[in-house]
């Protein structure tokens, strides 16, 4: 930089410097030029004024010169006047003044000898005066034009400087007010400038602390790779952008959208790179939050839908489409009414939707209609107004739960309750019957009480076995073992022998009671009344029943051995009556007790299908 220039480093913004230099002469000349400017350029006089002033000036000089010098030096003083006239009023006025001055001098010359005429020498001298003065006017005019041009270019320079300053200030304020982080990097990716707004969003307290630091180092992981790649692209002259997560200088983690591009000079070359980062954290978080809500609705197993205020549907989640059979159907043609059977439409239009308008909410049971099958779907529905971001109601929303399973469960429970009540009443009726028959046949109250207790226990045992199989069947071995267990050890005193067989539920109670009566009788009078006797309980299935007319039969035998000698009872009580009569009835076959002297034998014979659940044989 030369000694005659001074540097003005105008700091228009961090890292942005503009260099302006001017000559010192320019400054010194300024006051004179400023004065001349008004005379020469700004207020150029009109033609009569110019020539009038020139005439007056020359006249005044002529009078002054005459007063001072009379006939002596007739051209004296005119030249400076003409020069000033030419300088101030232009070339035309200068030449006019030259002519006048020559004429005035000529008038003076007429007053010196030879009087009344001009000598040759005087004519020559006058001509020389006129010529040199005219030449001087030419020089002055040239100077005048130069001055005018200089002023014009100076003014233009001042204007452009002012414009540049204004532009500069504008760019500065834009940079400062932008909330984007605008950075200038050198070709090595080092930070050379960061905008004021950028320093705020990046939480930079002192830019000098990070000036010159490699910009990609502010990124970690994937972001670092993206930043390096973007720099590489910019160095190759191409713009590139990416989205990444990076921390501010104070460690606040934020999402950024980053655009990196070369800063081109007018000739297309570049030696700096622009990096603009925008904080998109809020946007990103609201997007993520919105995404979560969308997923919540989409993956819900409840029916979620929205309709416009005119009833047209604009959203249904997958569960809703599945529930009413609308997979892949265009929703826009549907209205709320299409989802309900005709008898429900009036309820929805007349009660539900008005309640939503009035109370802001409605919930209750409704019935939807399946679009393909027409099947009715009981649902528990909640409806509410849907508003836009300003709070204006734009439609109606619903969360609706499929109530079919619940309804079915309720119905099942109702049936189960009914069935339970039915069974309970049947059991009570059986108890009533057993009680009455016990009392009817009892010889005394004490005996009746004893018998009744034991029979109710047997009834309970049968009920246990049935309950285990949900009243659908009863395993014969289990029923036999449990009914007889109170009367003697199963396996030693009482032996059971027979195939696996599942009894019909309705015969189980009677068989349990019959076995109880047989065992009670055996304990009192038969083979279980001493220490040696035994009871063999055996059952068989005879015949396969697969041929026509030859049905499989079920045969059960109760055989007592080793007891005291048997005599037929003198009176047939409830026990034997029940055994024979009820088993015949329940099993639809024959049943009889044979009081053999060596031991009581009971034989029952029935169709297998009347006694047992016949399983499909493989």
């Amino acid at each position: 930089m030369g000694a005659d220039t001074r540097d003005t480093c105008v700091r228009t913004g961090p890292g942005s410097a503009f260099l302006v230099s001017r000559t010192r002469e320019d400054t010194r000349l300024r006051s004179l030029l400023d004065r001349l400017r008004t005379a020469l350029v700004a207020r150029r006089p009109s033609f009569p004024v110019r020539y009038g002033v020139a005439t007056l000036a020359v006249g005044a000089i002529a009078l002054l010169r005459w007063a001072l010098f009379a006939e002596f030096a007739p051209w004296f003083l005119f030249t400076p006047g003409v020069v000033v006239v030419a300088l101030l009023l232009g070339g035309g006025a200068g030449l006019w003044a030259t002519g006048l001055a020559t004429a005035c001098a000529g008038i003076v010359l007429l007053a010196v000898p030879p009087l009344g005429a001009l000598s040759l020498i005087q004519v020559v001298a006058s001509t020389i005066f006129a010529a040199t003065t005219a030449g001087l006017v030419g020089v002055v005019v040239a100077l005048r034009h130069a001055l005018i041009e200089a002023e014009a270019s100076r003014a233009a320079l001042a204007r452009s400087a002012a414009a540049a300053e204004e532009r500069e200030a504008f760019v500065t304020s834009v940079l400062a007010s932008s909330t984007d982080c605008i950075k200038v990097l050198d070709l090595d990716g080092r930070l050379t400038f960061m905008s004021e707004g950028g320093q705020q969003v990046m939480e930079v307290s002192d830019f000098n602390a990070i000036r010159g630091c490699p910009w990609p180092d502010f990124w970690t992981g994937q972001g670092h790779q993206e930043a390096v790649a973007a720099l590489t692209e910019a160095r190759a002259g191409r713009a590139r952008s990416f989205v990444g997560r990076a921390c501010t200088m104070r460690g606040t983690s934020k999402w950024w959208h980053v655009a990196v591009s070369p800063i081109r000079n007018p000739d297309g070359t570049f030696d700096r790179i622009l990096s603009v980062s925008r904080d998109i954290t809020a946007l990103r978080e609201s997007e993520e939050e919105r995404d979560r809500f969308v997923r919540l609705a989409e993956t819900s197993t409840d029916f979620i839908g929205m309709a416009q205020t005119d009833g047209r549907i604009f959203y249904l989640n997958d569960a809703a489409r599945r529930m009413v059979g609308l997979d892949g159907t265009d929703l826009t043609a549907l209205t709320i009414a299409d989802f309900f059977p005709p008898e429900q439409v009036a309820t929805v239009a007349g009660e539900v939707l008005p309640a939503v308008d009035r109370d802001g909410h409605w919930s209750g049971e409704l019935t939807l209609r399946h679009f393909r099958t027409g099947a009715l779907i009981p649902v528990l529905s909640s409806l509410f107004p849907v508003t836009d971001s300003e709070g204006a109601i734009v439609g109606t929303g619903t969360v609706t739960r499929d109530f079919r399973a619940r309804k079915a469960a309720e119905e099942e429970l109702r049936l189960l309750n009914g069935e339970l009540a039915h069974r309970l009443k049947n059991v009570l009726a059986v108890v009533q019957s057993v009680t009455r028959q016990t009392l009817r046949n009892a010889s005394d109250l004490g005996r009746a009480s004893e018998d009744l207790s034991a029979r109710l226990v047997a009834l309970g045992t049968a009920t246990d076995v049935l309950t285990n199989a949900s009243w659908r069947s009863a395993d014969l071995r289990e029923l036999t073992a449990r009914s007889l267990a109170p009367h003697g050890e199963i396996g030693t005193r009482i032996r059971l022998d027979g195939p696996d067989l599942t009894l019909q539920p309705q015969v189980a109670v009677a068989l349990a009671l019959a076995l109880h009566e047989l065992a009670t009788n055996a304990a009192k009078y038969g083979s279980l009344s001493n220490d040696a006797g035994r009871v063999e309980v055996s059952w068989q299935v005879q015949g396969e029943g697969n041929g026509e007319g030859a049905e499989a039969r079920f045969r059960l035998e109760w055989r007592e051995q080793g007891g005291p000698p048997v005599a037929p009872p003198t009176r047939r009580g409830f026990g034997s009556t029940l055994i024979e009569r009820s088993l015949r009835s329940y099993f639809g076959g024959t049943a009889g007790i044979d009081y053999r002297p060596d031991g009581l034998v009971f034989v029952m014979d029935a169709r297998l299908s009347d006694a047992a659940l016949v399983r499909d044989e493989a």
Partner: protein
Amino acid sequence: MGQSTPIGTKTILVVEDEALLRFDVIDFFEDRGWRVYEAENAEQAIALLDRHGEIRVVLTDVQMPGAMDGLKLAHYVRDRFPPTLLFVVSGQAPPSATALPARATFLPKPFDLNRVLRQIERSPVG
């Protein structure tokens, strides 16, 4: 209205598939000097009714195996033998009044046989 059945006729038909319950009712009425017919299902009951016109009282369970349940049987009896006293027994909820035939008494299980007997004895025919 004693014209259809002789006064003092004590004849009852008990229709009940559950033998334990049936025997109790049979024994109860037999002990009190009644002539008792028994049936396990509606078909047997109808056959007995056709054969024994003197049957004055029918006591039937509702739930029974076969094509005809006790309710249908009761209607059949009311149509075919209008003066018959009808008792319909069930362990389930009582049928609606319209489902029952006219002048039939519904008895929920378990029921009191003595009350049934008193009602029979109070009825005009008895």
